[in-house]
């Protein structure tokens, strides 16, 4: 089985992002920045009603407006519009301002239909609004609850939130020929976007579609295909015979760009006299618009007797999409609050209570048990848990109450599909191509980093090329599988190319190819390191012929792993007069196998924690109950943390090189909100039932506890 080099010169060090200079200087051209000659701007006409049927559409007034070059009907008369913001017509005009005017001029007649705008309304109404309950049961929960030494009951939850990608969804479409479509898309899946578009234009024989995404402004799970707006943009460009840019406006992004479903659960749970979790009974519900809202529960811990009934509620809102560790932040939020409630009930330290109840019911959790223990102790030590944590409810006089909480996470990772090609040229130049994309995670830096490690060169010696579907196919960036897949395919392509170069060098040096090594910009005999050639000399032996080798990530099987565990601790102070929660400190301990680039890996954890604290304290995508319309589809009333809101974050990476590469994009965002919720409860002595933990909710919870 292939392995990573035992001695690594570059892997695991702190490498600055090689495209940093382009990004800080504004030279990086994102899809949103792409100005092609003759570019038109596209806009979409959307439903003003949460539920309606299209009676008629008159595009005439729009078509005759100045600058308008194309109109495309997305959904025709008779079509059902399922949420406020559902797409109807797309228009393209010379300027964006003209396109907006044209969109407003399209006349649509609607038959307005009844709608559901909240989970409560849907549950009350039943019928089509609630999908058949999913029930999972094991053991005898009712008996176990009766037999339990202590039990708790609670309701926990979080609302729908949206991805708020700073670069909105969309693309620039350019038909360079009748059968050749080039798009610049803001996407997590260049290959998937190209394939999706090809599938939409089946009437074009031998259609070639290329997707370029050298830079993209955030996806978080919401950008995997061309989407309605991408297809409409390509249709407009085809009709107008000019390139069209159509990226969503901010309000459209909130309603049509996907969301993380809400999650609520009523839980009864019990422990035996030793503090073993023996019974878990949950009734959960949530909405992802018309999509499912399932999430794992119980999460991590595996009580012997458990029952879970879940209802997906359909409301007239935009569709849910994967969002950074889909389902897991919700599962952790519910479960980790239950764990704290139980620990507090029986007076056991929550860290010890978690360690006592760590599962060993499968191989992954057996591997993770010592990792969780190490993380819990390290995190507890760093936040001052054993010295400073007080029992539930800070009894300090005055309005400021402090509290601490912790939570665990788990995630898969692994190596996603990926192929790469390595070319070594006679002049010594090295090119590595991989059809992956960089979401800000650092894949652009990863490719030459891995290649340089394997080839014994420096990162600057390798031209890494990603961000185009014309390169060897690599999967979409989801599930924290990009670093695994790309590292393996690049490493193996480079190894195969290097083996070819060794053959040439071996003949010249008169040694066995198997005895050669690459390092320090040289190729040399492992028995006699003085016997060797410089990289350039070795490549010169190629004459006129370059080496070109490709590899699939499967050839590197064994060099990546999956299954990670993480622990986070939060310390907060809460002003009980104003309800303001202040984050004092978050300690994040992350397990990610072999760290590839320590600097960027840490950034992933910092960013994931910020995402989690946004979930905990700020985010809430609201639909008005009376009208079904979004009330905060902007970035003012849709709250996100700003620099002063974040407090101190401390990141610790557990480096386990023996496990190989494991992705880190998602796991550290899972436990943050749960740790914060537990810290707030520890400060206040009462639970705030649902995220986000806003001042008004803190005050409500305090008021309710005094009744």
């Amino acid at each position, binding site marked *: 089985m292939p392995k990573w080099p035992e001695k690594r010169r570059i892997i695991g060090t702190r490498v600055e992002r090689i495209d940093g200079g382009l990004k800080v200087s504004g030279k990086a051209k994102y899809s949103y920045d792409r100005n092609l000659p003759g570019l038109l701007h596209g806009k979409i006409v959307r439903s003003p009603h949460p539920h309606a049927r299209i009676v008629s559409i008159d595009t005439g007034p729009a078509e005759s407006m100045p600058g308008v070059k194309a109109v495309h009907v997305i959904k025709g008369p008779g079509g059902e519009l399922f949420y406020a913001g559902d797409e109807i017509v797309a228009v393209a005009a010379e300027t964006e301002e003209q396109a907006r005017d044209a969109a407003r001029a399209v006349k649509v007649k609607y038959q307005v239909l009844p709608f559901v705008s909240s989970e409560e309304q849907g549950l009350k109404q039943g019928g089509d609004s609630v999908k058949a309950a999913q029930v999972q049961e094991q053991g005898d929960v009712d008996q176990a609850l009766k037999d339990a030494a202590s039990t708790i009951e609670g309701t926990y939850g979080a609302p729908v939130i949206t991805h708020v*990608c*700073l*670069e909105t969804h969309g693309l620039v479409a350019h038909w360079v020929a009748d059968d050749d479509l080039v798009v610049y898309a803001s996407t997590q899946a260049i290959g998937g976007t190209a394939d999706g578009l090809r599938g939409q234009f089946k009437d074009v024989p031998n259609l070639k579609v290329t997707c370029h995404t050298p830079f993209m402004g955030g996806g978080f799970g919401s950008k995997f295909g061309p989407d309605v707006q991408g297809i409409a943009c390509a249709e407009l460009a085809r009709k107008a015979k000019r390139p069209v840019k159509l990226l969503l406006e901010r309000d459209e992004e909130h309603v049509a760009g996907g969301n993380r479903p809400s999650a609520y659960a009523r839980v009864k749970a019990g422990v035996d006299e030793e503090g073993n979790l023996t019974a878990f009974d949950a009734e959960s519900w949530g909405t992802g618009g018309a999509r499912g809202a399932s999430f794992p529960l119980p999460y991590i811990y595996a009580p012997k007797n458990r029952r879970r009934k879940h209802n997906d509620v359909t409301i007239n809102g935009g569709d849910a999409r994967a969002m950074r560790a889909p389902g897991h932040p919700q599962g952790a939020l519910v479960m980790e609050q239950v764990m704290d409630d139980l620990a507090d009930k029986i007076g056991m330290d929550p860290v010890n209570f978690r360690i006592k109840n760590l599962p060993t019911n499968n191989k992954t959790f057996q591997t993770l048990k010592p990792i969780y223990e190490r993380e819990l102790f390290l995190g507890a030590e760093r936040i001052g848990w054993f010295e400073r944590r007080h029992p539930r409810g800070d009894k300090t006089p005055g309005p400021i109450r402090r509290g601490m909480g912790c939570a665990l996470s788990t995630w898969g990772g692994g190596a996603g599909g990926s192929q790469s090609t390595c070319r070594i040229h006679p002049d010594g130049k090295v090119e590595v191509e991989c059809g992956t994309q960089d979401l800000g995670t650092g894949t652009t830096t990863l490719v030459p980093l891995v290649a340089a490690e394997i080839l014994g060169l420096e990162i600057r010696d390798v031209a890494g090329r990603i961000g185009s579907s014309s390169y060897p196919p690599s999967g979409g960036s989801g599930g924290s599988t990009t670093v695994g897949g790309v590292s393996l395919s690049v490493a193996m392509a480079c190894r195969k190319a290097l083996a070819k170069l060794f053959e040439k060098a071996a003949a010249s040096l008169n040694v066995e190819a198997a005895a050669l090594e690459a390092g320090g910009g040289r190729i040399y005999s492992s028995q006699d390191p003085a016997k060797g050639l410089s990289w350039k000399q070795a490549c010169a032996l190629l004459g006129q012929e370059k080496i070109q080798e490709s590899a699939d990530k499967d050839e590197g099987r064994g060099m990546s792993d999956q299954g990670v565990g993480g622990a986070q601790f939060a310390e907060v102070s809460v002003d009980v007069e104003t309800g303001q929660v202040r984050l004092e400190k978050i300690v994040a301990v992350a397990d990610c196998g072999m760290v590839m680039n320590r600097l960027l890996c840490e*950034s992933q954890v910092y960013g994931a924690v910020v995402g989690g604290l946004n979930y905990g304290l700020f985010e809430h995508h609201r639909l008005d109950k009376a009208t079904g319309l979004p009330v905060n589809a902007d*970035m003012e009333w849709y709250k996100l943390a*700003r620099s002063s809101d974040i407090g101190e974050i401390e990141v610790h990476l557990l480096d386990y090189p023996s496990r190989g590469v494991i992705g880190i994009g998602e796991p550290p965002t899972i436990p943050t909100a749960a740790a914060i919720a537990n810290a707030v409860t520890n400060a206040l002595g009462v639970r705030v039932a649902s995220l986000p933990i806003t001042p008004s909710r803190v005050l409500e919870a305090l008021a309710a506890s005094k009744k």
Partner: protein
Amino acid sequence: MAHDDAQAERESDASPRCDDPGVRALDGVSRRRFLQTLGIGATATAATITEQGILGRTLQAAQPQADEKLGPGPVPVTLKVNGQAIKLAVEPRVTLLDALRNHLVAGTNDFVDLTGQKRVCDRASCGACTMIVDGRTVYACTILAIDAEGKEVRTVESLEKDGKLHPVQEEFIHHDGLMCGFCTPGFVMSSVALLEKNPSPSRDEIRRALDGNICRCGTQCRVLEAVESAAKRMQGK
């Protein structure tokens, strides 16, 4: 929390806010020019829009000629951006940000193509479009191009000198104060403006100066480190 900072603190901030007196002054001008576009004479409007900034600053816009009327079609606009004059023909409703990002240089088929500053919220909330106009940070999504005439506009493209990045930019890279990079030019401009005003800010002053900028990837901790390092370097420490 950031959203509830005392007004007194706001004055020292580098980031623009919608209730920032500097922004308000520009906004006042915007409304005046906007009313002209509707053909309402300046005499009639002067009384209603001449107001004082909330901290007592008097608006200093030149009184327009009563017969001047702009739009609704494209009007000639000359902007001074990064030290260069740029001629455009844009409708009066076009923002400074959109003019530089999306529009053509007047009389050519070439885009101005200054796309460093991003359009993210388009409503003065997120700071991705932050430019420095006459020494103050502004949200370029909320200022009309016609109102930026006669002002010195600086975008992130102005910072690189002779192929060398500004210390703030270099420190963003060293500390990895960026991920997807879409908010980064805005954060860079807010940071540069802060250090031009306050060369050795405290941590809290940096935080407050950057409270007008939103990052979704979550780079704020490292941006803070980057700005601290840049301040030290620029002070020769």
